[in-house]
């Protein structure tokens, strides 16, 4: 086990230096082991994600970060260990159950509907909030009409929040990469998740796009109080954004704590800079 930071009890809450309240743990990973055949992707990892915090998972390529994210959202079910979400041990989930549990995510390689407009893409994020049947929606009648108008209004709030008014009706395939990432964030936000997972939200972006995205991530966390777990390569970004950081290497956890603690952790420095074997 790596050295744990002086953590509070998982049920306590505390107030950060910048005035946000971090609540009790919404998700706890207990001794997770995930195998693909003979390959052990995740080896005995434990950590928690607290309500209202920005939690980063970092590590070199192949460290098992994306697998970890898939365990968090329930797409992978670990062979050993428990995932405790909102106080309950999670059982293996069917896809629609995954969608309904209140965890939304973005993808490392953008997974939008390229031929659909920005609006329509974000509307798909509202799908789990719609209750009327297919027939009523096709006829756009009665409750279905009211429901669509309400959801459309909600989507407009997101469009306003992400400042993407000018691309509302543009097919996302025609948008530059940075904007597509923003639309994907919009779709995840549309689901009103209690936990938002971001898989390399800054990958392939230029400095200005990174600055914009950082601001949106902070704003989402601040304005909506959304708990965020993110994977990122760009260390400087992570250190500025995250409240706490988990560091992984070869499927193991080698560090966990505030950015400052992680930065001075020898195991982390070795993993990132390499060590001489003499």
């Amino acid at each position, binding site marked *: 086990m790596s050295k744990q930071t002086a953590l509070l009890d998982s049920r306590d809450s505390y107030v950060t230096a910048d005035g946000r309240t971090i609540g009790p743990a919404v998700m706890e990973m207990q001794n997770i082991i995930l195998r693909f055949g003979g390959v052990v992707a995740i080896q005995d990892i434990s950590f928690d994600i607290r309500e209202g915090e920005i939690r980063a998972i970092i590590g070199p390529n192949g460290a098992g970060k994306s697998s970890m994210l898939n365990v968090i959202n329930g797409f992978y079910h670990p062979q050993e260990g428990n995932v405790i979400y909102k106080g309950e041990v999670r059982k293996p989930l069917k896809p629609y159950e995954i969608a309904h549990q209140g965890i939304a995510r973005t993808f490392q390689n953008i997974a939008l509907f390229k031929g659909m407009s920005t609006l329509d893409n974000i509307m798909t994020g509202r799908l789990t909030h719609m209750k009327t049947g297919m027939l009523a929606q096709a006829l756009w009648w009665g409750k279905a009409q009211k429901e669509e108008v309400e959801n459309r209004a909600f989507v407009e709030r997101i*469009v*306003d929040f992400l400042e993407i008014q000018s691309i509302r009706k543009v097919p996302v395939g025609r948008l530059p990469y940075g904007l597509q990432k923003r639309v994907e964030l919009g779709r995840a936000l549309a689901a009103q998740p209690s936990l938002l997972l971001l898989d390399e939200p800054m990958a392939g972006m230029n400095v200005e796009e990174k600055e914009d995205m950082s601001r949106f991530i902070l704003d989402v966390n*601040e304005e909506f109080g959304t708990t965020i777990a993110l994977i990122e390569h760009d260390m400087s970004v992570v250190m500025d954004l995250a409240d706490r950081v988990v560091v992984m290497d070869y499927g193991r956890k080698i560090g966990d704590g505030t950015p400052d603690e992680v930065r001075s952790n020898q195991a982390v420095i070795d993993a990132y800079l390499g060590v001489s074997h003499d």
Partner: protein
Amino acid sequence: MAAAETSAARRDTVPRLLTFNAEHYADKPAYREKEFGIWQSWSWAEAKNEINKLATGLLTMGLKPGDHVALLGRNRPYFYWAMIAAQTNGAVPVPVYQDSVADEIAYVLAHCSARYIFAEDQEQVDKILEIQDKLPELKAVIYLDEGGMRKYDRSQLHSYSDVQAAGENASQKQKADLARREAEQTGADTCAMLYTSGTTGQPKGVVLSNDNIIKTAEASSDFDKLNVNDSVLAYLPMAWVGDFIFSMGQAMWTGFCVCCPESTETMQHDLREIGPSYFFAPPRYFEGVLTNVMIRMEDAGKFKQSLFHYFMDHAQKVGGNILDGHAVSASDKLKYGLGRLLVYGPLLNTLGLSKVRVGYTAGEAIGPEIFSFYRSLGINLKQLYGQTEASVFITQQPDGQVRSDTVGVPSPGVEIKISDSGEVFYRSPGTFVEYYKNPKSTKETKDKQGWVATGDAGFMEKDTGHLRIIDRAKDVGKMKDGRLFAPKYVENKLKFYPTILEAVVFGADRDMCTAFINIDLQAVGNWAERNNIAYSSYQELAGNPDVYKMVQKHINEINRDVAADEMLSGCQIHRFLILHKELDADDGELTRTRKVRRRVIQDKFKELIDALYGGKSEIFTKTQVTYEDGTSGSISATLRIEDAVISSAQETAA
């Protein structure tokens, strides 16, 4: 007579115009804004209610008559209301260019000792916080958009709606105080203070009275028969006098509707949805749109292309004449009608100009081809000449007398004289009161009889009475051999080429003229794509030999053109280079209204100018650049210098 006098007396300040409109046009739309994807509207009665709440709120916060209230944000109804709310209190609104960096804003805010500032969002609030220690008089910042400001210190920061709520909860005495403040005002009181963009030196605060604004608005509205059913898209900076006259003066006088776009990027789209009947845009805008149309037409199919060109040729021939009411044969009229059905109508609709009844352009010279393109489509596009100190209008073109090379006849109530040195002077009801805290400049600009120096050199055409502007008076100089040097005249000709975005010509006290060129990345980029020329940046494209050849060809043409005019034949460009960066307001090379700052460029690129005159064929240079967020970096490049062909007057004649 007495009744007429009292009713006129009731319309001598902006708050009284508001009351008048709320009584006479209560249910007519006064403001529209697109928000959350939908056009929201406010009638005059609703607008008055909103403004009243805000004005009372400001009073409860301690706003005093004579205070300056600065505004930092894009065109939104809330900001227009804030201006009127300030005026109702007898305070002076000072709109500021919202894309300026903090340092530029600091000068203006400190100079007018702004006590209250309306800021649109976090970005603007951050700028104010950054320069707060330079603003000892500042009492409160009022913001519209809360986003990102949760952690901010609230002692001086108030939300717009909180101020309005305070206004609703105000005591009877406070409400009575506001009514008294409003009643005490006269037409001679200050209506607004607008800072000139400052082509030279620091910006100057131009004080305009209610009389200036309202009399100018009245005369100009009558001139173009603007009325309560018109509408305008407010998208040009609020700090610019033009927007103040169109969206404030004329809108308040006639009661027409002011529409605000959703964001700067959606302007074109919003324009199309609103379809305003009254439209103003700088020549740059019309150029940009035309370039876009042409680029898109080149991508269209053969049939569409031929249809477009066939009918556009016809429009060029008769469109202008039809617009001016000249006689046109019945068959030509019929063909034009068909063209409208097939080409002009759909095109205008796409551009959002279908309903434009009166269109104006000003600020720079407009290319004759561009001007006639729009007029031939049936848009009544005209030119005007004006400046902040005149409450805009000095001259404008009456319907039926529109030409691209003049700026029109004196506006109603304006007198014009040309000094011996060729500088244009005017005197009008719109003439400004003074430069704020700058009696020296006021004296230099405005004489005792009220004549104001425009700083522009020009002349009146004898037979038509139209004014023609040559250049800035101080820029018109002499070359070493005494020939006339009018850089802007040549630069404008260069800029009429869609591929050339900006040009700066040098030659004062020299024996020949040289030029810096900025290419238009969009137009040249498209051309490069067509010709299989690969490039990765502006810099690379600008240095491409083929691009140089193209620009060289343009300059040779200009030289031939300039040589034809004996007086200006010395202004032919002998050598030129294409700059490695776009001239930018953030780097101080252009003003916020995108006019070239000659002196700054001369100092900054001194080594390049030396190279142009030193006979070198290339030069290595390194330039500081400022990014939008205020940080800076540098770019370096090796620039080629090319010669152009010089024409003699005889050649042109032959």
